[in-house]
């Protein structure tokens, strides 16, 4: 067993984080060491800490209690404590103790950086794909996007709505695209909203002004919507599910952009 040690250092991947690398066994007598390190970081104005635990052989209940107390102190300073690299045994033990609801268990330092930027820098996570103009691929694709959104903390209701938005926009893109041209979907997921763009491409030259006006009229609903009409329900549904809806034309491409805010 390696002797106990704590190394405090700047995170090499992000200047906003400080890493506390713990080595050895976090026995009961290490409680003060843990607290001292966190307090020292706080005094330096470093409120976002990563507890790197890949070389920790054992975590005692008092040490765990101290880590929870440290997290609380950091949160009170608008910071956080991420646990990284826990062994399977330690992770399972902590989950059994119910600590999984309090801490984020992250596999690597990179994952902690991504979590930190997601929580604090509002840059969003981008998921982008290109699909062939075939209806058959849409179901799996819409489900894929909805599951990603769900993993990012959106409610079941929101994930269903996102699935519907993606579905309808893809179907619309395939139906009104230039047969065979792929559809591009871009979904940037922020903490409190999602920005979706679906683009279909026509081969050849840019659209004529008349064609643009016809598409704009159809998509932006300048004519009133009639539920009994066979066409237009999909776009109308997207409009109703979204907070912002717009259509743009870039060369031969038609881009529909939707913003959907998180349900609170």
């Amino acid at each position, binding site marked *: 067993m390696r002797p106990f040690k704590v190394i405090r250092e700047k995170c090499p991947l992000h200047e906003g984080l400080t890493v506390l690398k713990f080595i050895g066994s976090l026995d009961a007598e290490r409680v003060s060491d843990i607290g001292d390190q966190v307090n020292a970081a706080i005094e330096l104005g470093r409120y976002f800490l990563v507890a790197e635990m890949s070389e920790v052989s054992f975590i005692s209940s008092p040490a765990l209690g101290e880590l929870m107390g440290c997290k609380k102190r950091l949160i009170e300073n608008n910071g956080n404590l991420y646990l990284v690299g826990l062994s399977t045994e330690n992770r399972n033990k902590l989950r059994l103790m119910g600590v999984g609801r309090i801490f984020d268990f992250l596999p690597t330092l990179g994952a902690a950086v991504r979590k930190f930027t997601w929580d604090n820098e509002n840059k969003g996570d981008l998921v982008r794909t290109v699909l062939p103009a075939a209806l058959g691929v849409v*179901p799996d694709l819409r489900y894929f996007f909805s599951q990603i959104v769900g993993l990012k903390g959106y409610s079941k209701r929101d994930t269903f709505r996102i699935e519907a938005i993606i579905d309808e926009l893809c179907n619309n893109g395939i139906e009104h695209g230039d047969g065979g041209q792929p559809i591009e979907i871009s979904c940037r997921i922020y903490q409190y909203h999602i920005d979706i763009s679906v683009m279909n491409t026509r081969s050849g030259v840019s659209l004529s002004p008349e064609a643009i006006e016809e598409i704009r009229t159809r998509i932006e609903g300048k004519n009133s919507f009639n*539920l009994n009409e066979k066409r237009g*329900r999909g776009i109308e549904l997207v409009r109703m*599910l979204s907070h912002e809806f717009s259509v743009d034309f870039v060369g031969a491409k038609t881009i529909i952009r939707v913003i959907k805010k998180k349900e609170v």
Partner: protein
Amino acid sequence: MGNQLAITFKDIPGKADAKIVEFLGDLDATNVESVLEKIVALMNEGIVKLVADFEKLRYVNSTGLGILLHFSKIAKEKGGCFKIANVNEHVYEIIEIIGATTLLEIFDNVDEALSTL
């Protein structure tokens, strides 16, 4: 490729012109044609009163919704009806948002729908 949707038919005792139709899966643009074929074929055989059990229907899109409205219309034209039961909250929300709740007969459960036949 495409999304599999299974529909099964169940007889309703005492009602030769009616059936329960159970939907399992997602109803969308990839499978509406096959659903349309099966339901229209049934109606052409004289089964014009249908109760759609949506307990296992996970998802419906605007194309699927269109087909439901179509079933409702043609059933009425044939002197029958197309009722829907056990709609999950997410599917119901889609139906409600698009404004179709006034055009479809929706019930909390199959028994309630059957009682109106």
